[in-house]
Structures are given as structure tokens and as C-alpha cells.
């Protein structure tokens, strides 16, 4: 087991190095840089000497990769000194910029997951138990619709619906608050802001989990021990909830864990719709400003979370099933 974990940890290294190189080169292939965006972006004349000075102060005049003191060593070297550098746009430390938004993104990810689980598990079970009936078809159509409906459009529709219904019922239109308040400070205000994007993303994200629950349940329900339980005369409810569900949940938990990892960084479009100041929005902004330093750290954060989640899931599987360890 110990050997397996070490092996998997070592396998993470080439993936992370590859991701770092890929992101680095992709960003450097963009014509222009943050200095030009900042100084010439307004359409006014920018002094080339001033741009050069700015590039020099940010280290953008250094060679790209080859050499000891390059832009790439600046980027990767930061990981060994635990210094992620400063945003090229605001000049503040990147850890500060990320920390400011991380809470919101994390809370959104958790809430969306809760919504997804609350939808996926009951629907998946019903769909499997009533296989090939109209209930099954309805659930499957509902879950496929979840993948099909763009979450940003669902977001616009939710906002629109809120406006129309509050207008009709309360007499004046109501919109979710725009500024983020910590849930500890004002839980009600916090919830009234974040519940809507959480529903929009949670529904989408429940689709895969519903299908996974359904297929896992179908497999388990055909097992001998379920037949034995039925033959014993156990109540169907007990069989499903205690005997079948527990064994079907493993792949479902995996899918949920992996999607959770993606949610933290992958909320790009939803945050745009609800005007939330999270990591996704920060990413879009930093790409727009050509803020290389911030963009590459954000991407690496998402990649790291994803790779690490995958590792934890694999190790968990190997712990449960010794055959995986030796293959």
C-alpha cells in the first residue's frame, strides 16, 4: 500500500511539470503583454521607453526558458521558496488575490455539491428501481437535460424568474445581493446570494452523478445477495437503502469528488452571470489583462487540486481493492 501511494505521488510530478510548461508557453504565445495592456490599452499613446521600463520591472524582458535566470525559473522557482509572486496587474501578492476569492468559490463548490447530491441520489435510485418505466425515462431525460442546458443560461433564467415573481408577489422586483458577505456574519444574506448560482451549477453537476447512481444501483440490484435478502422476506425499502445503496455508492462518491475538484476553478461562466467575484471571474479577468503571473498560478491551482483529488480517489480505491495495487 505504502509503495503504491509513493508510486502514484511520483507519477503526479511529470503531470504537474507538463502542465506548468504547457501553461507557461501558451501564455507567452499571446501577442502583447500586461504592460502594453496597461499603458496602451486605453488607446492613448504609450511611450515605448515606458513600456520597456515596465517590462523590466516585471521581469518580462528576461529570456523565456533557456538559461538560469529566465521567466520560467521565476515562475517555477516560486514553488521552492513558497512565494507565488505578485499579480502583474494590481501588484498585490497572488496569494492575497486568490485568498480574497477562494472563500466564495469554495462555498459555491460545497453548496453546488450539496444540491447535486440531493438531486442525484434519490433520482438515481428511483430510476434504477423503476427501470424502463416512464419514471425511469423521465429521470433520464431530466438528467440529460442537466448536461444540455447551459448553466449560464439557466442562471439568466433564474434571475429573470426571480425578477418577475417578486414583482408579481411583493410588488417590487428583488435581485440577489451582489457583494459577498461571509456566512458567519450574515447567513441569510449570504444564502440569498449564493443559493441561485448553487442551484444552477448543482443541477448541471447532478446529471453525471444521477446516471452513475442509476447504473451502479442496477448492477448491485442484480447481485445474488440482494436476491437472498428478498428471499429472506426483507422489506424492499430495507433492501434498497441498506443492502444495495451502500454498495452502489462507491463509484458515485468518486464522480462527485472529481467533479468537486473541477468546480472550484470551473465556475468560470456561472460566476460571470451572477456577477460573483470568485476564482473563475478572476481567471477571465487575468486572461484579459494578460496578467501572466496570476493566470499561470490560477491554472496551476486548479490542476493541482484536480490531480490531487484523483490521487486521493485512486488511493482510496486501492485501499478497498488490493488487486489495483499490484496491477
Amino acid at each position: 500500500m505504502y509503495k503504491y501511494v509513493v508510486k502514484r505521488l511520483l507519477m503526479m510530478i511529470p503531470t504537474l511539470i507538463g502542465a506548468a510548461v504547457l501553461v507557461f508557453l501558451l501564455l507567452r504565445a499571446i501577442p502583447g503583454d500586461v504592460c502594453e495592456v496597461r499603458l496602451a490599452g486605453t488607446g492613448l499613446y504609450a511611450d515605448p521607453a515606458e513600456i520597456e521600463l515596465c517590462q523590466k520591472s516585471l521581469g518580462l524582458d528576461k529570456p523565456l526558458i533557456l538559461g538560469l535566470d529566465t521567466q520560467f525559473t521565476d515562475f517555477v522557482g516560486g514553488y521552492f521558496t513558497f512565494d507565488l509572486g505578485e499579480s502583474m496587474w494590481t501588484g498585490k501578492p497572488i496569494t492575497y488575490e486568490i485568498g480574497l476569492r477562494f472563500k466564495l468559490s469554495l462555498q459555491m463548490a460545497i453548496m453546488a455539491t450539496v444540491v447535486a447530491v440531493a438531486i442525484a441520489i434519490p433520482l438515481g435510485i428511483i430510476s434504477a428501481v423503476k427501470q424502463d418505466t416512464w419514471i425511469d425515462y423521465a429521470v433520464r431525460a431530466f438528467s440529460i437535460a442537466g448536461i444540455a442546458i447551459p448553466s449560464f443560461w439557466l442562471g439568466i433564467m433564474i434571475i429573470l424568474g426571480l425578477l418577475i415573481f417578486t414583482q408579481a408577489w411583493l410588488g417590487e422586483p428583488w435581485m440577489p445581493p451582489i457583494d459577498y458577505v461571509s456566512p458567519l456574519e450574515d447567513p441569510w444574506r449570504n444564502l440569498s446570494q449564493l443559493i441561485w448560482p448553487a442551484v444552477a451549477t448543482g443541477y448541471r453537476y447532478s446529471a453525471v452523478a444521477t446516471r452513475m447512481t442509476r447504473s451502479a444501483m442496477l448492477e448491485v440490484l442484480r447481485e445474488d445477495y440482494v436476491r437472498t435478502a428478498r428471499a429472506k422476506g426483507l422489506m424492499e425499502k430495507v433492501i434498497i437503502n441498506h443492502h444495495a445503496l451502500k454498495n452502489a455508492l462507491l463509484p458515485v462518491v468518486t464522480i462527485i469528488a472529481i467533479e468537486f475538484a473541477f468546480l472550484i476553478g470551473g465556475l468560470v461562466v456561472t460566476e460571470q452571470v451572477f456577477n460573483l467575484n470568485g476564482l473563475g471571474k478572476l481567471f477571465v479577468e487575468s486572461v484579459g489583462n494578460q496578467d501572466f503571473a496570476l493566470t499561470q498560478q490560477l491554472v496551476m491551482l486548479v490542476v493541482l487540486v484536480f490531480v490531487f483529488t484523483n490521487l486521493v480517489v485512486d488511493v482510496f480505491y486501492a485501499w478497498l481493492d488490493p488487486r489495483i495495487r499490484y496491477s
Partner: protein
Amino acid sequence: MATPEVYIDSEGLAEDQRSLLGKLAGLCRRQPLGAAGALVVIAMIVMAVFANLISPYDPELAAFENMLQAPNADYWFGTDQFGRDILTRLIYGARTALFVGFTCAFIGATGGLVLGVASAYFGGRFDLILQRIMDVFMAFPLIILALAVVATLGTGIQNVIIAITIPFIPQCARVVRSSALSIREIPYVDAARACGFSDLRIILRHMAPNVMAPYLIMLTTFVGQAILLEASLSYLGLGVQEPTPAWGLMLQGGAEEYAESAPWVPIFPGIAISLAVFGFNLFGDALRDLLDPKLRNR
């Protein structure tokens, strides 16, 4: 070799047709969702192909005197902030969506097919290195990789296609590789090698046809995914640019601004995107059930 005689028997033909229709009806009964999906897909293709015949107006011509009209007899789905007919732009948008969808899906899935089979066939160090490279690409959320590529190449339809295709290749390669691994063990591959066929020929002629099931399944799923991704990128302003009619673009800017006073502007394009992706996903699911008995009931 004697050529078999060909009979033209009108009765037999009729019977054949009936059985074909019967088969189709049977398929609809067994796969009602898949049949519904196929219907949406066909409707969309017809819409895209005959866009200039069906649509009543010009999709790109602004007519400010007709700005933001509510749905009425002349403009069934209303008009947008430039006075353009929304229905017309939806019909032409199907062209953009299908073009992007099919191009990305075809190139992505085919690239994945070749890489996946090659990876399984050669094995060893080649496989190991290729898999690590795939790992790198798979570690990015689809939208973030696509955004990064668009940021590099710039906006516009070709660059959107490239941005969406790149993340598809490793996804398909991984699935194809796992089926190709089991095929490699079948003796006919050894036989082909013993005959002295080139590696390329064995990969393309002997192995690739046997992984068609996962390939086709990935292909149809990719079409839906590509349509959705294109819409997301266009919505963020990083995809297809005005005045080209594209569904995601129709949701951008004005659509949100006028949502309250002119809800038809954001509603219809969103329905079009959802319906299209829904259709392709249902179709892909049914295809999976038909082609891959092992995956049935998943």
C-alpha cells in the same frame, strides 16, 4: 468468382421496406429517448442546410426601426436590440453550431482514435510518454484549456474550433486505447504483423475498425459538448464574433441587459442550445446501448 444473380422483385422490395419501417418502429419502442434525440438532430440538420430557404429575414442586417419587438405575427420570436429577427438568427445559428460541433467532434475523435490505437499497439515507452502527455491535458477543466487557447490564438470561428478540439483528443484517445489494448492481444494482429504489413496499415486497417463502437459514441457526445462549449465561449465574448449568428453570442451583452423588458431575447437562444445538446446526448446514449452491449443499462 461468379457474380450472384440480382432479382428485381417488386413484392420482395415492398416486404423489405415494410421490415425496414418495422425495424424503425421497433427501435423507437425500445429506445424512445434515442428516437426523440434523432428527431431533434435531423430537424437541426434540415434547419441548417435550408437556412436561406426557411428563414424570413436577413440574419445580419440591422434594422433599428424594429428594435426589441415582442413576438408577433411578423417576428415570431421577436427582434433583438439591433432589430434583427430572432427566429432567423436562430436558424442560421444552427449552421454555426453544427459546423463547429461536427468539425470539432470529427477531428477530436479521429485524432484520439489514431493516437489511442497507436498507443495501445506500440505499447512500451511510446505508450508511457503519450499517456503522460494526455494526463497533462486531462488535468485542465475543458473550459479553462479552451479559454487559454482562445486567449493565445485570438477569437473567431477557426480558433474556437481549435480550442475545443484540443481537449477532445486526449479524452477520446484514453477511451479508445483501453478498447484497443484488448484487441492487440487477439491473434489476428500478430497474423497481420507476420504477413509483413506496416505498422500504419495494421493500425488503420486492422485495429481502428474494431474500436468503431467507442469512437462513434465519443463522436456523438463530442458534438453536443462542442456546441455547448462554443456557446459558452461566445457568451464570454471569446468565441464567434458579431455579426455572425451564433446562439451563445445571442445570449451575450444585450440579452442580459434587456432580459427584464425583453425576455424573448435571452429565452429562445438558450432553448435552442439546450435542445440541440439534449438531442445529441440522447442520440449518443441510444447509440451506446445499441453498439456496446457491455455498457447496456449504464
